[in-house]
Every structure is written in structure tokens, then in C-alpha cells.
């Protein structure tokens, strides 16, 4: 009978079943929620989520006919929503009538949506507040008295803005600015354009009290008051890193609200902000995690007697105190657009590169090399698909990580650093020491030249042009040149970088990554034993793997994003993806007050247990570094650089450059195109006990600063257009880099 019944299922019913089982899998996988066979109060409605363009109001309109709802929960970026009825019967009724219901298209939603409904016993856990906070987040409940809170609320005059730029009604909330206007168009404040009204004096006590906690180092000079009606929210965002200092305070008044914190790797923590509480975002929670408020009319909060309950939202007002950054020098530099930073002539440029590129790479070669073993995927693919027998030059080959990826082609590497070339030689690769401005390779003899992460080390436009021209010279007509440079824009189309996504990894993915690498290497030429090398690295470096990648956060759109390959500054120790240490070595008598803050972060390894799973995996390293460098957030300052060199003239020169070039801070937006990026060299002789007693000079001796000119969008292509016989066949953005594929055009 049962079989007979099944065959009688209509087409629509079958479709519904199919859709339901798909949703069952999705829900279980992403939210850990099991679909119930028996009716419950809560419906999960697929295709009625924000991701499908359906609004909360639409859902309400359709579902309210079948009974009173407690709430309708719309989750960002999900195709489904949750409808919570007061009674199971109502939910069942709605299920019967609406499963398979199609909501027509609207002006804003181009296509119609068919709802597929399932019963669930709970909503995703991420919707209920957690006790866990993102690293660096401080929540101080009952920070001020209700009475003081009320006085603060009463002091806001929404009706009469004293100054036009001060108050705006945004789509989903109402805002008022003091001190400086946060200009939403540019996602920034203009330090030269203060508002007539500073932070009202009534806030002084809050500020004073907040500073006393020690969590905030800067006295705020900007206040934004946001007011949210129930059902209003704010999209996930990161406060523009370059606009405000670390330590952003938000005082909640009126109703409670649940704030969602999301890490780019997908972690999601909901934090309940009770009235009169102060939230302080510092470090990772300020720079990496986005925060937002889901538009809801209620929040799921812990019930007094245990369990969870639904609390309706009321009017909530938040006072956000921030300290704007003042970097006038770099702003000016930025305004000068693509012009090189003030380098008088080519000789000076060469000297800068000598001190801050060539010498640095020679000094850090071993350490640097130990961190670079995975080819960047797109370049790897490009080399893999070249016809057998292709002759390829890798200019700026570093430790030769691309030289062995395809044993059917012949690759010759060249690098300015003798120590890096020595590593290539030891790996049995063909490599020479030469300068990109004078490549000693035959003209028109190579099928392909690649130049990865090199040209950004040249300090004038003229020199960058000459480098490109040299690359073109050595390739045959119709030959290709692939160039990668580091991008000023570290975020594009709000796409989360691979870099960020890589942060979270479990043993399984790690193994997969490892075995992939292994296969690739095994397939490739040469006798270089990758796994062996990894083991060696692990034992030799006893504590450490550092990185290749520098991560920057750019946030033109006030949303989180950090990415990129490249070099980095931190030495990181790891144990099963947990970072224990970092060193940031700038301590100097001349360092100003705020960079003294950085010296507070001279924390080095307390414990290190070598972990086979986390060493030798670049992804792991990158992940660790990402976590770490936030903790060592420093202020951009022009500080004196000590590169462990004793030559007094060099010292003088270094100081000269240091005065002109800013030292870049990890995980912050590039403030100018010409920068110095620190590399923290691990000292093998240090052991755990010594580390804490190390004096500052020792630490400084291990910090090296490399010069970079980061490229703006279009700059690389524009440069290429100035060259003869050069056709840009492709240009793209790849993980924080701008890339071009050039073809040498045949002369007719």
C-alpha cells in the first residue's frame, strides 16, 4: 500500500519533498538545526530570506493570517527565514496553506519566490546571544546609572539640528554627529572640517570613566548618536580603520539589542548589549570582526530562570565615542596621487632600495624562505599550463618557489639577493644573482617572463618603468610577461579575501592542504623534498614560522576585509592554530608616546609546542599571523629604524628615509603608496626564558623595514601603456595584488 501511495504523489508534492530534504541538509550543515517531523511553533521558510530579496514585511503579511507570531527572523545572507508562532496549531495551519506558496515579483525583487516550509524546534544558535566575545571586545554592563542614561537621552535634541551636516535620517536609523561629521559618502571624517559642536559636556563623565578602565588610550573627539526604532538595524561593518584610532566605545541606552559580530572566516557571535552598558571594541574585534544589528523587532535573550526568551525591542539609542586619526602628512602624500614620494633622484632611489630592499632580503633570506613554500594558485596554474619546453625567466624569484612547479618547462630564476639565490641553488634550480633594472639575459629569448611581487620594491616610477621594459626585452615577440604587484586596495567588490577565509581551519582541511601541496611538489621537477624541508623547518626553527603575507585592512566601504599574500611583520608561534606570541620590535628613545604602546606588545613566546599540523603550512601561518598582528597594533608613526647595521652613514640614511616614509601597520589601510613594511626576524638563539629579559636593542636589531610602493587600481596598466611593443592582454586583481599579463607586440 505504501508503495502504491508513493507512486501517487503528485509532481508538486514530489518537488516539495525534494526541496524539503535539500533544506534539511543545508540547515543541519550551516546552522546545526534539525528539521522536525512533527509540527512545532517555529517554521523555517526557505526562499523567504533576505538573500532571496524577500522582506520581513512581506513575510509578515503572508504569515500573519494564520495566527499571532512572536517574531519573524530574517538572517543576513540566508535564503530562509524563521517564523515563530505563539501556537503550534497556527504554525501547522500556515504550513498547510503556505508550503509551496509563490510570492510574486516586486519592483525590487525581479523574480517570484516559492516558499518551502519545514518545522524546526529552534532557531540558529547564532541568533541567541553568546557569552563568548570576539577577542578584544569588552562589555561593561551597568556602566552608568539609569538616571544618567536618561539625562543623556534627554539632552539630545533631534528636532532642531544646530548644524545641517550634524544630523541625518538614514534609511534604517537616525544619526547625529558631534566633533566631526562621519561622511557616509566617503566613509571617513575630514579632520580639517570639524563641526561647530564638539562632544557635549554632559558626556564628560562617561568619557572620564571609560578612560579610567584603561581599555581606551585616546580621549575621544568624535561622537555619533544612532537611534534605532524596533525593527531597524545597521548592516555589518567595520569602522573605517584609517579614520579612527583603536578603542571604539559605544554606550547603549533605552532598549537592549543583540549585536552580531562576524569574523571573515564565518564565525558569528551574538552579543547582548543591555541598556546602560558600555561596549569597547579594541584590537581584533575592532579591525577584523564586523559588527551589525539585524533588523528585528525582538531579541532572543537569556531568560531570568534559565533558557531563552524573546524580548521585544524598544527604542534604542547608542552613543559611539571615537578618536579620529590625524595623519596629515600621509594625507598630503596621498593627494599627490601616484607621484613618487619625495626622492630627489635616481641615485637616492637606488640607495633607498639598497638599504630597504636588498640588504633586508639578504638579512632575512633564510627566515623569509622558510615562510614561502606555497606558490600562489593562479600563478601556479599559469605555469602549469605552459606548453612543454617553454623557456621561462622568473625575475625576482626569491627562494625559487615557482622554479620547480612544472618540470616540462625550463625556468631560470634571478634575484637581487645572493642569499635567496643560494637557496635556489641548493634546491637544484637554475638561478642567478642580478638586478631587475639590468637583467643579464639574452634579448628576445624567453617565451615567458614572470615577475611576482618585485616591482613594488622600486621606489620611483622611472625605475618601475625600466623594470617592465627589461622584462619585455628578454621575451621573444608574442612572448608573455606576467607581473604581480601589491595593491593599495586590499578589498575589492567587498569580496572577502582568501587570506581572511583561510583563518579557520580544522585538521581535516589542513591535511587536505598539505597533501595537495605534497602532490604538486612531487609532480614537479627537482629533487627538492618538500615534506623533508618542512620537517627541517619545524625542527630547526624550533619555535617559529613567520610569514609571507602582510595583511592590510582597507575599508573604503566600511566593511571588513583584509587580504593579500606578501610579507609580514610578525613572528608567530603556534600550537594548533593558537598563537602565543608576537614580537613587535620598535622601541626607541625617540619613539613617541603612542608608539610606546607598541612596545607594550613585546610579548614573546611563552610556550611553544611544535605541532606538526600547523607548521609548514602557509595557510596556517597566514592565519596565525592574522590573528596576531592585531594584538600588536601600533600607531602609524614615523619612527627611527634600526636595521642592525653599524655603519653610521647607513644609520643616518635610514633615519633620513624613516623621516619621509611611514612604517606601515599591519592590518590597516595603506595610508600612502610609499611605505616601509617591517619584518620581524626570529632570532634562533633566543629561547623562551631569555626572551622576556631581552633588551630593546636586541629586538630592534631583528626588525627590518622593506620599502614598498603599493599600486593603485589602474596604475600598473597605465605604466605598461607607456612602454613600446607592449600590449596588456589581461589585467586582474588577485588576492590583494594587481596583476597584468603583457604580450610583446611584433614590429611590422
Amino acid at each position, binding site marked *: 500500500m505504501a508503495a502504491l501511495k508513493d507512486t501517487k504523489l503528485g509532481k508538486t508534492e514530489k518537488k516539495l519533498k525534494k526541496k524539503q530534504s535539500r533544506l534539511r541538509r543545508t540547515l543541519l550543515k550551516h546552522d546545526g538545526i534539525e528539521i522536525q517531523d512533527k509540527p512545532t511553533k517555529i517554521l523555517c521558510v526557505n526562499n523567504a530570506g533576505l538573500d532571496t530579496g524577500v522582506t520581513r514585511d512581506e513575510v509578515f503579511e503572508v504569515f500573519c493570517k494564520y495566527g499571532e507570531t512572536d517574531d519573524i527572523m530574517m538572517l543576513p545572507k540566508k535564503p530562509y527565514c524563521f517564523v515563530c508562532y505563539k501556537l503550534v496549531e497556527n504554525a501547522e495551519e500556515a504550513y498547510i496553506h503556505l508550503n509551496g506558496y509563490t510570492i510574486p515579483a516586486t519592483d525590487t525583487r525581479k523574480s517570484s519566490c516559492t516558499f518551502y516550509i519545514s518545522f524546526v524546534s529552534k532557531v540558529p544558535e547564532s541568533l541567541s546571544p553568546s557569552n563568548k566575545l570576539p577577542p578584544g571586545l569588552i562589555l561593561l554592563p551597568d556602566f552608568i546609572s539609569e538616571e544618567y542614561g536618561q539625562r543623556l537621552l534627554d539632552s539630545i535634541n533631534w528636532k532642531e539640528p544646530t548644524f545641517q551636516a550634524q544630523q541625518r535620517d538614514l534609511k534604517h536609523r537616525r544619526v547625529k554627529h558631534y566633533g566631526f561629521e562621519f561622511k557616509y559618502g566617503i566613509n571617513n571624517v575630514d579632520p580639517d572640517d570639524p563641526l561647530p559642536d564638539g562632544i557635549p559636556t554632559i558626556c564628560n563623565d562617561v568619557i572620564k570613566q571609560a578612560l579610567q578602565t584603561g581599555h581606551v588610550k585616546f580621549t575621544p573627539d568624535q561622537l555619533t548618536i544612532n537611534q534605532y526604532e524596533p525593527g531597524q538595524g545597521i548592516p555589518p561593518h567595520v569602522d573605517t580603520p584609517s579614520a579612527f584610532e583603536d578603542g571604539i566605545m559605544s554606550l547603549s541606552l533605552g532598549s537592549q539589542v543583540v549585536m552580531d559580530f562576524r569574523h571573515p572566516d564565518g564565525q558569528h557571535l551574538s552579543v547582548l548589549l543591555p541598556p546602560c552598558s558600555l561596549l569597547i571594541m579594541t584590537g581584533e574585534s575592532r579591525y577584523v570582526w564586523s559588527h551589525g544589528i539585524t533588523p528585528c523587532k525582538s531579541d532572543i535573550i537569556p531568560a531570568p530562570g534559565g533558557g531563552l526568551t524573546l524580548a521585544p525591542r524598544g527604542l534604542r539609542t547608542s552613543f559611539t565615542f571615537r578618536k579620529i586619526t590625524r595623519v596629515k602628512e600621509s594625507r598630503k602624500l596621498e593627494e599627490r596621487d601616484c607621484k613618487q614620494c619625495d626622492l630627489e633622484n635616481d641615485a637616492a632611489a637606488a640607495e633607498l632600495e639598497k638599504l630597504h630592499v636588498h640588504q633586508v632580503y639578504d638579512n632575512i633570506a633564510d627566515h623569509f624562505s622558510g615562510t614561502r613554500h606555497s606558490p600562489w594558485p593562479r600563478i601556479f596554474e599559469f605555469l602549469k599550463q605552459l606548453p612543454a*619546453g617553454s623557456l621561462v625567466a622568473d625575475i625576482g624569484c626569491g627562494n625559487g618557489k615557482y622554479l620547480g612547479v612544472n*618540470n616540462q618547462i625550463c625556468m631560470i630564476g634571478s634575484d637581487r639577493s645572493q642569499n635567496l639565490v643560494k637557496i635556489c641553488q641548493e634546491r637544484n634550480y637554475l638561478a*642567478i*644573482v*642580478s638586478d631587475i633594472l639590468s637583467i*643579464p639575459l639574452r634579448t628576445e629569448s624567453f617565451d615567458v617572463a614572470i615577475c611576482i611581487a618585485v616591482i613594488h620594491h622600486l621606489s620611483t616610477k622611472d625605475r618601475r618603468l625600466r623594470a617592465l621594459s627589461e622584462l619585455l626585452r628578454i621575451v621573444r615577440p608574442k612572448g608573455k610577461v606576467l607581473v604581480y604587484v601589491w595593491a593599495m586596495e586590499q578589498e575589492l567588490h567587498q569580496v572577502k579575501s582568501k587570506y581572511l577565509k583561510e583563518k579557520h581551519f580544522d585538521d581535516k582541511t589542513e591535511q587536505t592542504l598539505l597533501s595537495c601541496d605534497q602532490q604538486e611538489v612531487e609532480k614537479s621537477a627537482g629533487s627538492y623534498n618538500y615534506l623533508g624541508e618542512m620537517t627541517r623547518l619545524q625542527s630547526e626553527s624550533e619555535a617559529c614560522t613567520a610569514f609571507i603575507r602582510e595583511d592590510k585592512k582597507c575599508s573604503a566601504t566600511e566593511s571588513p576585509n583584509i587580504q593579500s599574500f606578501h610579507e609580514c611583520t610578525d613572528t608567530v608561534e603556534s600550537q594548533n592554530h593558537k598563537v602565543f606570541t608576537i614580537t613587535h620590535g620598535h622601541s626607541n628613545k625617540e619613539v613617541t608616546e603612542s608608539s610606546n604602546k607598541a612596545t607594550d606588545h613585546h610579548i614573546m613566546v611563552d610556550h611553544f609546542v611544535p605541532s606538526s599540523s600547523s607548521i609548514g603550512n602557509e595557510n596556517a601561518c597566514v592565519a596565525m599571523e592574522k590573528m596576531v598582528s592585531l594584538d600588536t597594533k601600533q600607531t602609524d608613526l614615523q619612527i627611527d629604524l634600526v636595521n642592525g647595521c653599524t655603519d653610521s652613514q647607513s644609520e643616518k640614511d635610514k633615519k633620513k628615509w624613516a623621516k619621509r616614509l611611514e612604517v606601515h601597520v599591519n592590518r590597516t589601510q595603506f595610508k600612502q603608496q610609499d611605505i616601509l613594511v617591517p619584518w620581524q626576524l626570529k632570532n634562533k638563539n633566543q629561547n623562551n626564558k631569555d626572551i622576556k629579559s631581552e633588551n630593546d636593542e636586541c629586538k630592534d636589531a631583528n626588525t627590518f623595514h622593506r620599502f614598498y610602493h603599493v599600486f593603485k587600481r589602474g596604475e600598473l596598466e597605465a605604466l605598461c601603456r607607456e612602454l613600446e611593443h607592449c600590449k596588456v592582454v589581461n589585467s586582474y586583481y588577485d588576492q590583494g595584488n594587481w596583476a597584468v599579463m603583457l604580450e610583446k607586440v611584433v614590429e611590422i
Partner: protein
Amino acid sequence: MKLITHNMLTSNIIKGVTKGYPLGIIPRKVEVKDVDYNPEFLARMIPNMDWSAVCKAAKDVGHDEGLPKEIAPNFTENDEFLKAAHHVLLEIDVVEGDLVCPETGRKFPVSNGVPNMLLKEEEA
């Protein structure tokens, strides 16, 4: 430095030097290392080589005995030729020595198997 690398090197980066090719070799230490023979790879590589420069380099390092002076017409199928090419291009390794610019006599050192082709500022 393998001779395959040498074959691609030039000193035309020196100011005033037009061709700078081929570079002379003054060997001080030359090693011969076994490398797996891959006839397909060699067959594809031979056309990229300047064969007269290969011969000259082989002579400079004293390993030109029995090396064909010209590329065999049917080299892709000529195992004997490919083996000779394999040996001269991939197995001979100049560990220590100098490379000499044919036009100016400027020497570039080869040490630990790595040619250093860096110029002084005034030379470029």
C-alpha cells in the same frame, strides 16, 4: 651554474656593450653531476639554445670532447645527440670561476655555483 643557464646569459647590461655574448668562462672548479635524462625535455630545449655558444662554453670548461659542433638535423630522434646535449647542458656545473664579457673583459664571479651578474652603479 649549468651551461644551459650560461647559454642565456649576456653582459649587454654593461653600459656601451652591445651584444655581450657569449660570455667566456674561466673555470676554477667544475663538477659533473648525474641528472636524470629526459629526451623530450631536451628535444624541446635544443631550439632555444645558441649551439655555437654551447660549444664554446664546453670548450672553456674542458668538456667539449665528442660534442657535436652543430645541432644534428634530426636531433629530436637522435638519442646520441640528445645525450651529448643532456650532458653538456645539464650535468656540467661550474661551481667556481668567472664569466667574462667578450667586449669589455669585465668579469662576473661564479661562486658556489651561482653567477653574480650585479653591476656597479656606474657600469649600468
